[in-house]
């Protein structure tokens, strides 16, 4: 006998449940967590290092580094500047998921952290579908990647809270159509909070850090 069974279940539900558990652990210790997504080479690690170097006094930070290959290149850089860091190697998977991040969170002393930056695997497609337990999603778009990225990878621009446009120092040398880029973003995510920065020169970091400090203070209050 054949029978039809209605399910109507969102396929990402089980990941989202784990993500909620992660957020519960973070909330219990008043930790504000950010999931940083970008294509390879957009400047995720440089952005984290610049943020560490300019961190407002009193904010204690931790980092989770996600990489697909078994490397510690990025986490070594974070460790070198004295920040607690946990490395996740996804073993070929193209994104972090809530399960992996949950295990990494358990390795951190959350008592000693106000701000957790999670560097996702470099990829503009896959990370968008996987909640981690973060309080904010950020995409770093760098100018040499081209202005067409919102049109080609719409999904990742949909669920984010902040957009960082990196490598503004290169604008005089490349053909990056800022209006076309911003229009694409506006169609997908109206009014998205956007900071244009250069990790090379430090330009634009004051505004980003002011936003960050406000969010961390709200979480600690």
């Amino acid at each position, binding site marked *: 006998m*054949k*029978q*039809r*069974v*209605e*399910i109507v279940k969102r*396929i990402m539900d089980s990941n989202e449940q784990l993500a909620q558990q992660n957020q519960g652990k973070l909330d219990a210790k008043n930790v504000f967590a950010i999931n940083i997504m970008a294509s390879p080479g957009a400047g995720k690690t440089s952005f984290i290092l610049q943020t560490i170097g300019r961190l407002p006094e009193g904010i204690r930070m931790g980092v989770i580094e996600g990489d697909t290959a078994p490397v510690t290149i990025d986490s070594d850089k974070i460790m070198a500047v004295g920040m607690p860091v946990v490395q996740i190697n996804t073993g070929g998977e193209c994104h972090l998921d809530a399960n992996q991040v949950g295990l990494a969170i358990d390795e951190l002393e959350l008592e000693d952290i106000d701000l957790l930056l999670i560097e996702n695997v470099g990829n503009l497609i896959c990370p968008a579908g996987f909640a981690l337990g973060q309080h904010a999603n950020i995409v770093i778009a760098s100018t040499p990647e081209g202005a067409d990225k919102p049109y080609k990878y719409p*999904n990742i621009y949909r669920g984010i809270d902040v957009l960082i446009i990196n490598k503004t120092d290169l604008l005089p040398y490349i053909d990056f159509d800022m209006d076309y880029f911003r*229009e694409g973003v506006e*169609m997908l995510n109206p009014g998205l909070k956007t900071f244009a920065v250069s990790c090379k020169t430090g330009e634009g970091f004051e505004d980003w850090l002011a936003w960050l400090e406000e969010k961390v203070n709200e979480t600690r209050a």
Partner: protein
Amino acid sequence: MHELSVTESILKIVLQSAQENDAEEVTDINLTIGTLSSIIDDSVQFYWDHISKGTIAQNAKLHFNRVLATLKCRDCGLEYKLDEELIPCPACNSINLEIISGEEFQIDHIEIRIKEVEKNETTR
């Protein structure tokens, strides 16, 4: 590449639901996938063929219901579907838009064959 993880999720949900309904075989699986969800049908099918082997869902046919992204213009009210690239409102060129659909990624229903209740000693 993330299709491997999502296909594993599909298999898990399908097998759980099949078990709850005393299925001996899953014959069909109906999925709704929005074009903005970045999920590729062929890729899901590819991983499905591998990971469903040896389960009661190994012969199930996957049906993909593709939903085109639908946008609504907040200025002139026009609703339009995106066949290809993201474009401003075709009527008034506004970029003040709302995405109404196209981000779905779900299992709608499955079809199963149920275990026959054992019939003892049928009369002749």
